[in-house]
């Protein structure tokens, strides 16, 4: 492998790891807002999202440069396409994190509504999935990645249960419709975090094994 390609891939790897760390921190803070919303902190998160956007653009530019100049194949090609996709997933997670914090802030000065334990549990599971997906990428652990894909079902189930509970709350307590809608929205966003973690895990399986497992259920 040429020295240039080695150097460029090394830079790419380091940039993606920095982006992973930033996004993980962002999503952690956003979920914490649900328990203790604070408008100033939410604004800070929006700033951090700008940083993630810059990472996303610079990683994409770097990948395109490598594709054009080195025309990589095999593991190098899989690595670059995976990095491009993971970067895109992380960028969406950062956006969603800001939305979660915004929904949490919408609860401030609203009639009291309890953030259920289920929602807290779902949030911690989604964050853990993302954390493990990044671990799977760093450790090239496709078995861990496959486990993450499986674990998305549990988050989907929690999502359905929480939505159902919120619907009941809105029917029984119309005065709570507005905060309930905020929680409803936050729930959907958290569920999307788990989906993006799943996508990253699927990308890791492709990186390591060269097998595309996305949408596998639909093709059976």
């Amino acid at each position, binding site marked *: 492998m*040429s020295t240039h390609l080695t150097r460029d891939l090394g830079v790419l790897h380091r940039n993606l790891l920095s982006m992973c760390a930033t996004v993980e921190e962002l999503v952690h803070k956003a979920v914490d807002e649900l328990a203790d919303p604070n408008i100033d902190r939410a604004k800070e998160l929006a700033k951090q999202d700008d940083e993630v956007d810059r990472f996303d653009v610079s990683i994409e530019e770097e990948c395109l440069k490598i594709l054009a100049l080195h025309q990589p194949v*095999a593991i190098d090609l899989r*690595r670059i396409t995976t990095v491009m996709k993971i970067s895109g997933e992380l960028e969406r997670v950062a956006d969603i994190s800001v939305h979660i914090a915004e929904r949490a802030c919408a609860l401030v000065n609203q009639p009291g509504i309890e953030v259920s334990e289920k929602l807290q549990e779902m949030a911690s599971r989604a964050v853990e999935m993302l954390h493990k997906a990044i671990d799977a990428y760093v450790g090239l652990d496709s078995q861990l990645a496959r486990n993450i894909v499986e674990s998305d079902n549990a988050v989907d189930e929690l999502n359905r249960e929480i939505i159902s509970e919120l619907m009941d709350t809105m029917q029984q307590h119309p005065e709570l419709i507005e905060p309930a809608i905020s929680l409803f929205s936050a729930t959907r966003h958290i569920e999307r975090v788990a989906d993006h973690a799943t996508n990253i895990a699927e990308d890791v399986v492709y990186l390591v094994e060269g097998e595309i497992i996305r949408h596998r259920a639909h093709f059976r």
Partner: protein
Amino acid sequence: MTIMQSFTELVHQRQQRESAKRNRPVESEVTKLDVRNLNFFYGEKQALFDVSMTVAERAVTAFIGPSGCGKSTFLRALNRMNDIIEGAHHNGTVLLEGQEIYAPDVDVVSLRKRVGMVFQKSTPFPKSIFDNVAYGPKIAGQRNHKGLSEIVEQSLKRAALWDEVKDRLQDSALALSGGQQQRLCIARALATNPDVLLMDEPASALDPASTSRVEDLIFELKQNYTIVIVTHNMQQAARISDWTAFFYQGYLIEKDHTQKLFTTPKKKQTEDYITGRFG
């Protein structure tokens, strides 16, 4: 060991483990050439070691590998082009549609009519364009001028050269550009109506535009012919072939669908070669 090297090592270990768990099905193919346990020697020196491979009909099979890996020797063994080299000998079998091409009763000239060859350097005869293409059919006994004209026109059309030379068929072939000369050699090979076309780096001496024309032509030709191509240009192999075989130090290391070989090769040596880590 650099970060990137350790990354590649690790991916390979994981990949082998996972692919061993999941046996992937092999697609069926119609076999044109079937080579079994071929060992080839130049005098004392062994150039090929126990190579077994099938070549699919009406498809492009590319051979890649570093210089001296045996890919050209293997290609030339497919139409006995190595016979003319003193001291060259082999064991093993090479079957063309089930018939052993090294059997004592095989007429080598007839074999080479069925298995045509195009070389790296275009080698037009110092004759007219017409005579270059008509040369093979004439030797094969075609004397009728009308018949020859038809063969020449059809061969030049198949080689995508007709429109450029139809008004100057009696001009010297040596006056053509490099790219045109190579397509003329392809037309000359097609004139004997072969089943298989062997190409030894057919585009390596051509500029990018001529290379692109030859690559387009190979894509067209595979509708009717079985094509085997040796190339040093891996991007070219990736672009034009259906199957790719990687040779190293006289051994066939891996042969697979081109897309698969260039995205997820099974063998580490293949991975290292195509990613430029050695060779």
